[in-house]
């Protein structure tokens, strides 16, 4: 079941089209990656979903209903550019943001304390925001985003400024929320995290949706039939039709199989020619490579 569906959403500004007929669906309980270079229209798309701005045309459906102003209270949005009131105390600040999400003061206080305890930060309660490091402030912002138990979480570059330990802490929390059924839209430039965390992605460039789908399927779709072989002994000088040696260094070779050749044939050929095979693996393109290739409009095929 999809929790969010965009149908040909368009937003124009005075001299450019920020979002151009973008359509996609996000499955309930999944982690959905939204990728694109700077200025591609990701932030505008997110602002439309969170009703901060309205689309010029197109429709957005949230939990099956046409998007309206009551829906954002069920969403949590961590913007890429984010700040806190420097002079406020952490506890008071969290309660304030939670109240604005519709929690009562009592509920907000209880939830905020719970959250801070889980993030090992309860002793910050009476500290002023300006006394915290940037990473600590990020954590506070993350807590503020999830404190009202949203069903849809939109995280724009949630890991910037976090050290590896805190990154893992936030990442685990994202997985924990996903397992509880929360849907997460995840916007980032860090592709290795997209591969690691997202099931589905959309790639936006210049306001247009240029690629969309399951991460594994996309990598398969863009594969170049490359195989990596670790071997002992020497490689044969010549190869059968359909096998092409791309690279060879220190007993690791990369082959491309073309014209309907199969990996089994390659493996058989190598074994027959007297090589010792230690490892044999298909190389799928990383999302990063696909991203760069798509954005630049360059394809090897």
């Amino acid at each position: 079941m999809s929790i969010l569906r965009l149908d040909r959403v368009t937003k124009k500004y005075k001299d450019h089209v920020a979002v151009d007929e973008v359509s996609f669906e996000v499955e309930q309980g999944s982690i959905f990656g939204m990728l694109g270079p700077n200025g591609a229209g990701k932030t505008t798309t997110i602002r439309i979903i969170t009703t901060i701005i309205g689309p010029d045309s197109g429709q957005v459906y949230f939990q099956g209903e046409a998007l309206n102003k009551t829906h954002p209270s069920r969403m949590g949005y961590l913007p890429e550019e984010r700040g806190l009131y420097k002079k406020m105390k952490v506890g008071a600040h969290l309660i304030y943001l939670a109240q604005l999400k519709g929690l009562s003061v009592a509920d907000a206080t209880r939830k905020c304390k719970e959250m801070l305890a889980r993030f090992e930060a309860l002793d910050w309660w009476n500290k002023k925001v300006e006394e915290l490091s940037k990473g600590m402030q990020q954590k506070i912002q993350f807590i503020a985003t999830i404190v009202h138990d949203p069903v849809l979480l939109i995280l724009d570059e949630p890991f910037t400024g976090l050290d590896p330990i805190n990154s893992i802490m936030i990442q685990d929390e994202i997985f924990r929320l996903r397992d509880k059924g929360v849907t997460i839209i995840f916007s980032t430039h860090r592709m290795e995290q997209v591969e690691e965390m997202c099931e589905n992605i959309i790639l936006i460039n210049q306001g247009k949706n240029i690629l969309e789908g399951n991460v594994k399927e996309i990598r398969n779709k863009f594969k170049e039939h490359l195989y990596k072989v670790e071997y002992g002994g020497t490689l044969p000088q010549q190869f059968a039709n359909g096998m092409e040696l791309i690279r060879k260094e220190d007993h690791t070779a990369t082959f491309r199989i073309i014209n309907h050749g199969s990996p089994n044939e390659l493996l058989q050929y190598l074994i027959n020619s007297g090589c010792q095979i230690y490892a044999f693996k298909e190389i799928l393109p990383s999302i990063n490579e696909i991203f760069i290739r798509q954005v630049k409009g360059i394809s090897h095929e």
Partner: protein
Amino acid sequence: MNNKMWIVAKREYLTRVQRKSFILVTLLTPIGIALFSVLVGFIMNEGSKSDQRVLIHDDTGIIRQMAENDKDFPYEFSSKDLKVLIEEYRQMGYDLLVHVPALKDSAATYLSASYYGEEKPSLMLLESIESHLGDQIQTYRMRKSNIDQSLLDSFWADINLENGAMDPNNISESAASGKLNIILGTALGGLMGFLMYLVIFIYGSMVMRSVMEEKLSRIVEVMVSSVRPINLMLGKLIGVGGVGLTQLAFWAILIPTLLTIVYAFLPGVDSAQLSNVGNVTQVDEQSLDAFSAQQIIQAIFNLKWWLILPVFILFFLGGYFIYSSMFAAMGSAIGEDMGEGQQLMIPIVIIVMIAFYMLFPVLTNPNGNLAIFASLFPLFSPIIMPARLAFDPPWWQIILSIVLMLSTVWFFIWLTSRIYRVGILMYGKKATIREMIKWLRYSE
């Protein structure tokens, strides 16, 4: 929804009111005004009193004779030879030596005298010496002609336009529209207009500053995901406006209390100095001298406070919302630098300054065409109408002015919130007025 606006307003109000700087300004301003008024009074009194010692060599013989009976005569005499005195007056401890030659004939009305001094004396000192000396001769001549001072005083005629009836059928109203009331009305009107002008700048720029800070620190990005921009803006306006009302309420109580205490306990400071402090009120102390303190207090109580105060607060809020909503919109339009706010403020500052300078002609002619126009035109009325209130403007003008002002508040909040909601999320260059007009048309 509106609930969120109040949550924002509450935070805006509480964080400001709890700040040390707010408490200090609220308490120290009245103390500062009290000290300032004492200081100004002291300077006015003491500064004009000359500490120069003056010695008089009197050849008429009349002045010295008469001065012996005048306790207030401030100078001393010496009958030593003039040439000796010219050599010695400084050793004797005097700063100025005045030589009055003998009268050519007993009826002379003009006498040329001379003075000797190390430094040039001030004009005030010279005039003071001239009048003191002249007074003695005048008194002498009056006594010689058997004219008594009380007889002379009985010739005096003092006409005072104390009672005015604006309504010929209602004479009882006359006491309330007499001259004293007009003096007080002018003072109060000037004070209220000036206060409005200050308030618009103090709290308007407070709103602008806070909008700019929230934009530059990207707090708005977090805020707008849970609060609609118009509620964020309104919450801020209400919160800061509340701070303004709180501060004014404290001042309204503390300033008169402190001034009363100061004048009651400090000797030699009299109430006429109040007008030195509030020169903006255009009331000079001479016009108040004609009335006793009791009359003044009575007249102050007789003012229609039940009307003036609520209407003043209404105009305070109206003016505050009109101008601070403009300040908020301008604050949202800056680029990456707080300093750009100054430039964007200029158009607003010009409008407020025009209104402020209209205050003076309006107080001179509080029911003239300019006064009527300015107190109805919504960008000026918050400053001008409170100034006219003490002059009993017609009811229809007050009501029309309020209606026009409230509609303008409504319109400006609609207009500025449309600029604000776009501005707070735009980064890069400072927006121009033309761009802001384009923002008005963006779909919500």
